[in-house]
């Protein structure tokens, strides 16, 4: 590994000296092993990401599996028009957006806060243990988390409701109340993914040199000053990039989780684009229509990611592209 990095360092030095004298072909030949290493990744993207992308054309067809892609009728934007005129559209958009905002406000900062807290912990053993414990939930499947939630929150013998009843004398129907649906979803996400999210921030924090902290201490900065003026600025670019990436998935709500927590009593607030695509596409077999819905989501995602990147650059931050 060290040999490898030394080699690339050396190569870099070469480039500085002689870039202008090399043709593209020569450069490729010189770095041929690096390009070789690129092939598996490129193949993956071509095979599994770019080739299937032609399937989105289905959204403009009245696709029937038996007539096949080539002989299905083309219908233009019919499916999109139907979708936007459907009374469900507003409800889906509202539910999706509200959940997305909640996610951004409550979940997104959570890993940053935990990373900052962990960074202040002095005892290495304690820090490591906490770090491991908080990212264990990431490896549990949503099915398990939904069952755990059910066991804890059910009104017939759930632990949480036992406590609530003890203090207030009444039970709260978390699982079937539309008011509790969103808090419950966000709480699940925070519990499951916060620990995992801290990994990247902790990595970024590891690169802050101790000298900066020492200098700050010399200047008389306390703990919070140090956090504010040294730690957070060190994290800033990481936060911005993760935020931009998150906005790209703004409308993705994690189908499994929502699907598992939905029931007759909270469906009104629980239906989001992802579950709608499943119900319409897979259980009702309307492939073209659900592809159109999925495509609409993807377009919104692209707009958001480019928009966020543009604004990040305007604000003087490094963007993605």
């Amino acid at each position: 590994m060290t040999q490898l990095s030394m080699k690339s360092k050396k190569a870099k030095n070469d480039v500085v000296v002689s870039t202008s004298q090399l043709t593209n072909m020569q450069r490729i030949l010189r770095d041929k092993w690096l390009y070789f290493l690129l092939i598996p990744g490129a193949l993956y993207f071509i095979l599994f990401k770019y080739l299937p992308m032609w399937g989105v054309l289905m959204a403009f067809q009245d696709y029937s599996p038996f007539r096949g892609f080539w002989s299905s009728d083309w219908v233009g934007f019919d499916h999109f028009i139907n979708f936007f005129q459907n009374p469900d559209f507003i409800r889906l958009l509202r539910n999706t957006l509200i959940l997305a905002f909640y996610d951004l406000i409550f979940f997104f900062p959570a890993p940053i806060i935990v990373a900052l807290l962990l960074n202040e912990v002095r005892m290495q053993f304690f820090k490591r243990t906490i770090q491991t414990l908080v990212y264990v939930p990431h490896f549990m499947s949503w099915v398990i988390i939904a069952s755990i939630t059910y066991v804890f929150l059910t009104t017939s013998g759930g632990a949480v409701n036992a406590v609530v009843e003890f203090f207030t004398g009444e039970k709260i129907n978390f699982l079937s109340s539309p008011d509790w649906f969103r808090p419950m979803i966000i709480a699940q996400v925070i519990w499951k993914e916060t620990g995992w999210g801290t990994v990247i921030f902790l990595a970024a924090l590891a690169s802050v040199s101790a000298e900066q902290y020492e200098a700050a201490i010399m200047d008389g900065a306390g703990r919070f000053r140090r956090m504010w003026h040294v730690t957070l600025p060190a994290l800033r670019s990481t936060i911005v990039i993760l935020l931009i990436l998150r906005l790209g998935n703004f409308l993705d709500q994690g189908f499994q989780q929502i699907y598992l927590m939905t029931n007759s009593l909270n469906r009104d607030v629980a239906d989001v684009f992802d579950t709608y695509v499943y119900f319409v596409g897979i259980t009702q077999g309307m492939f073209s229509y659900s592809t159109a819905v999925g495509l609409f989501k993807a377009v919104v995602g692209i707009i958001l990611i480019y928009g966020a990147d543009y604004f990040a650059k305007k604000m003087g931050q490094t963007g993605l592209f």
Partner: protein
Amino acid sequence: MKMKKSLLLLLFSLLLSSILVACSDDSDTSSSTDEGGDDASSETNSGDGSEDAYDISIMTTSHSPEPPGNDSPVVEAIGEFTNTNLDITFVPNSNYDERFNITLASGDLPSLILTGKTSSFINAVHDGAFWDLTDYLDDYENLSQMNDIVLNNISIDGKIYGIYRSRPLGRMGVTIRQDWLDNLGLETPTTIDEFYDVMYAFTHDDPDGNGQDDTLGTIVSEYEGPWDIMQTWFGVPNKWGVADDGTLYPHFQDPNYREALDFFKKMYDEGLVNEDFAVMDPAKWHDAFVNGEAGIIVDVVDAASRNQDQMIDADPSLEGTVDVFGAVEGPNGLYNLPTSGYSMMYAISKQAVETEEELHKVLQFMDDMSSEEGQTLAFNGIEGRHYEMEDGVYTPTTDQSLIYEHEDTNQLLTFVPEDRYLEKPLQELEEKEEEVLETNEEIVVGNPAEPFVSEIYSRQGEQLDNIILDAKIQYIVGQIDEAGLDEAEELWMNSGGKEYIEEINELYQATQ
């Protein structure tokens, strides 16, 4: 330097080969199964030396955790009996619809595929994916005896596209704890009012005599079936009612519907039904009855003996504590909800079965499976392995792995025209169940729109149904009031319901 290069090369080739392996995985396995099929066919060919065994692939549901593989002795015996090479794909019942649609989309259909009369199936029929069997069925001894009412129910545009799996029409019924009734000095309820009184007593009067307030009248899960059955008692039509002027209207516009909902709401408010029913996993539904937490369960008739068997397993003294009846009388008479008389059907794919000659072989297979030998093989398994016959008494094996080996092959059976498999002598309760099934047939309420195929319903039926179902549940738990129900009905109308009613009425008038 050399070292490093060769190391890189090694790494790279490792990466590449792992990708290639991953890519070729599918083709590998499929070709190997093909080979397996060929082997089997050559074996059977040399075995009987007559006509070549015909390859039939089947996709169907499974209910046991370990469905039999194609090498199961039962599957092989069925193949031998019908002179076919079977390739059966068992899909867990709980996500069958999903797999069905994905299989449709993949375009790679098996010869026989189990399907409900769902919108995607109907669309596929319109695209010409399945054989029209209408004119072929009469040529087969058993298949020609299918029931006309059920055939009408499964028909699409007046044609038959599948072989239905027969189920008793009057299968809905109430399972009740007889010993609880006895303890409280109550009679089996015969009217809705008495039914309410029994539920009330079961909830509040300590029917199990343990001195604790730990019992419920009835138990309901997320599955809406019990509400549908109970509302039928009130005289609510089965999905569609016929108005005085001969037009059809959706069941929730019936005046009795609100009355039924008020009754359910009262049940819920007074705690006669479990508070968490709207989120309860249907798989755990019957546990509460079996464990003695609830005294009544409104479901299918045969649940009575199934539940009693489980109760006896845990405590033999509970024998004879369960009773069953069909329905209780409402203000307008005695009604019960029927099934549609079938549980899904086997459709034959035009893609896998290309010629009429092949179609004949597939139909012959289904016909053979309805014979006594076919039903016994698929339902009971192989004599000496899965069951014993002594002096005409049938004793099935109790070895769980042997049960799994053949249990799910009964999914292949249509039971047309009748049950012909081996049965244990009926217990008392099972005889009672048979009686209830029969008396039910006289009081079931038919759905006048059952045979019709609605364009709108096939597009957005699920959303339409959910609007009404959700409103019903919300009303029962008190999330919405009468005005909320009205709003939901209006939403239903504006979401395509109005057009749906018109469409169904057009179809209905055309047949009158």
